[in-house]
């Protein structure tokens, strides 16, 4: 009873992440990698991503604080951030990163600022969503034993 409810909830949250374009197929790759050896692999990677990716944003903000200067460097950092985001399937974040890079290439500082704001927003939003989903998922996992994902 409670188990089914949990399952439905997890499934719903997961579905929403895909439906709203927060995540793409790469996330499913992560789920597939979750196994007995690494039962919390998705969570581990998501945490790794969030603990690491903050530095990119900080660096970018630091550079941008000095006004429009080194677009190439901004582009490079954002490129790394994008690579990282894409590896967990953070679709929306990735999209905003691309937007930022385009502004860099165009030398559009205002555009960069705007895009960075979007990046940060999506980055934070995804974190909230993922954390709540993974929380439910882990409870479910403990109850059900090994599962890779919840079916919608």
């Amino acid at each position, binding site marked *: 009873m409670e188990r089914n409810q949990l399952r439905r909830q997890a499934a719903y949250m997961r579905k929403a992440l895909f439906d709203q374009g927060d995540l793409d197929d*790469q996330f499913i*790759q*992560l789920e*597939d*990698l979750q*196994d007995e050896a*690494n039962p919390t*692999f998705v969570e*581990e*990677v998501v945490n*790794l*991503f969030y603990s*690491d*990716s903050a530095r990119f944003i900080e660096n970018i903000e630091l550079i941008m604080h000095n006004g429009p200067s080194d677009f190439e460097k901004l582009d*490079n950092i954002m*490129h*790394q951030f*994008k*690579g*990282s985001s*894409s*590896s*967990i*399937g953070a679709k929306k974040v990735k999209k905003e990163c691309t937007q930022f890079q385009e502004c860099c290439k165009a030398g559009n500082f205002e555009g960069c600022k705007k895009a960075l704001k979007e990046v940060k927003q999506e980055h934070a939003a995804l974190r909230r969503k993922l954390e709540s989903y993974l929380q439910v998922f882990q409870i479910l996992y403990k109850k059900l034993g090994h599962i890779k994902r919840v079916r919608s």
Partner: protein
Amino acid sequence: MNLGAKPMSFSSSSSPWKSNNGVSDQFPAGLRVLVVDDDPTCLRILEKMLRNCLYEVTKCNRAEIALQFLRDNKNGFDIVISDVHMPDMDGFKLLEHVGLEMDLPVIMMSADDSKNVVMKGVTHGACDYLIKPVRMEALKNIWQHVVRKKKNEWRDKDLDLSGSAGDGAMQQKSSDDVEYSPSTNEGNWKSAKKRKEKEEEDEGEDRDEASTLKKPRVVWSVELHQQFVTAVNQLGIDKAVPKKILELMNVPGLTRENVASHLQKYRLYLRRLSGASPHNNGLGNAFLGDAGFGSISSLSGLDFQALAASGQLPQHGLVSLGRVAAKPAISVDQRNIFSFENPKLRFLEGQQQQINNGKPVNLLHGIPTNMDSKQLATLHQSAQARQNKSTPVVMSQAIPSGVAARSKMDGVHGPAYTSVDFPRTQRAESAANSFSLVSDSGISCLTSKGMAQNEVNSETKRSRNVYLNHDIFHEQNIGRNQEWGVQNVGPAFDSAQLLHLPGALDVSSAVLIPPGFSSNQINKATALVGSTPGIGQQINSSLANNSLVIKADKLPEMGFQNVLFNEQLGQQDLMTLYKPQQAGIEPVENEFGFDEYHLDNLIV
């Protein structure tokens, strides 16, 4: 960062597929992969993916450290996967170093999918380029690069080892090469295992070589290498010699030998780059792709000495026919049958050696010919006719043995090769992928370029100094016109004259006769024109019947015994038809085909 295993564990860890007598059903499980990425998230995911593929994974988040790892653990890894954008060292830099120092396959990866970056990876020698996010499916197949690399190493080795080209092991290798054709991405398990066995031997050899070359080791750091590259570029790669490079680099403690050895590696590296095409287009065979030397590894040479030449002729006739890009089975046969005795033969260096020895070398000549299907058919018939008369190879029209087909040859324009005259001492070098007939050294050469319209693949085109690239006789080519254009006609002849050579041909033979080449399987008729005015007179009396009998003692298994060459080349088509007689002596291979002759390296 998790550098995982310590150096010790690298050296001691031998992958499952390397142990167990070299055969492992688990392959590619245990493939030793080094992953380099500064992004911890990507690195973690890659690690997990690779582990799920059952590879043995070492991860590293810094390129410099990765490079050090690789240096400390030579033979400790099978393949490297590296990110492109890294703060401490660009992935391309790492790629370059790995290519130079350990020659491991390197896969580049990046979220950047722009064409120029991918291109940069490829031109720097990456065996693959993965776009991030990397997917499991892409990693499942990376072992193929390891296999392919090993195959290429064999090919390189083959090039160096020409001397033993006839032994059984080589033969097997070459058949393996075929199985590992780059065009077959999947490879096949059994052959993969076979390959592995050979790799072991190969590695053994490598180690031996390495140990004999042990010298005070110079670590070619990025900076040092950069200095080196700068010096080389300044001098020009062709003119860069260790001494000058050393002078330019001006690094205390560095010796000429250090530079020389590094230069050698660098050249190999460049050569690999020039041949580093992920796909070998054109020919679907496995022999292509190595820096333009194409199928040299499968080359076999015929080395005959003219019977008549002994003692009387100042030079020895040497004919070596390199056969390239033939179908697998045949190349094996050929290898088996035709072997050079001179172990020093080096295909790779033949060119330089030739240049350096400064002796006059008459090059191969190709005579432009046309062959249409009808004529070719006639050729076939005539060949058959001759075969019945057990006249193995007919050279020209006035052949006394009364080859009926003779006249039919008129007007048949097969690709013709005039021969080359190499002083005997040059034999080994000149033998590389070419065939040469003895000819009078005074004859200037025709250099012609084969212009087979199809099947000349990109690899060959790329090859350096390919003077002749005849891709004539593909099976499918039968019946097509082959056009051969003369590039350069030496002063001594114009082409018409060439066809009217009064002299006798002193052919040391040359006849590339495929074993088991039965008449209905002749894919091509190769005409050989030997032109040696003046030599004829010297031919000893045993050849009174105007024909030369080719001594075939070096080809014991070969189905043909002798080759007749008519001395009186009075007619326009001075052609030699290669014809194997006695078909069926060797197992007949249906796919036999002379695909190409690469006549590189023959430069005056």
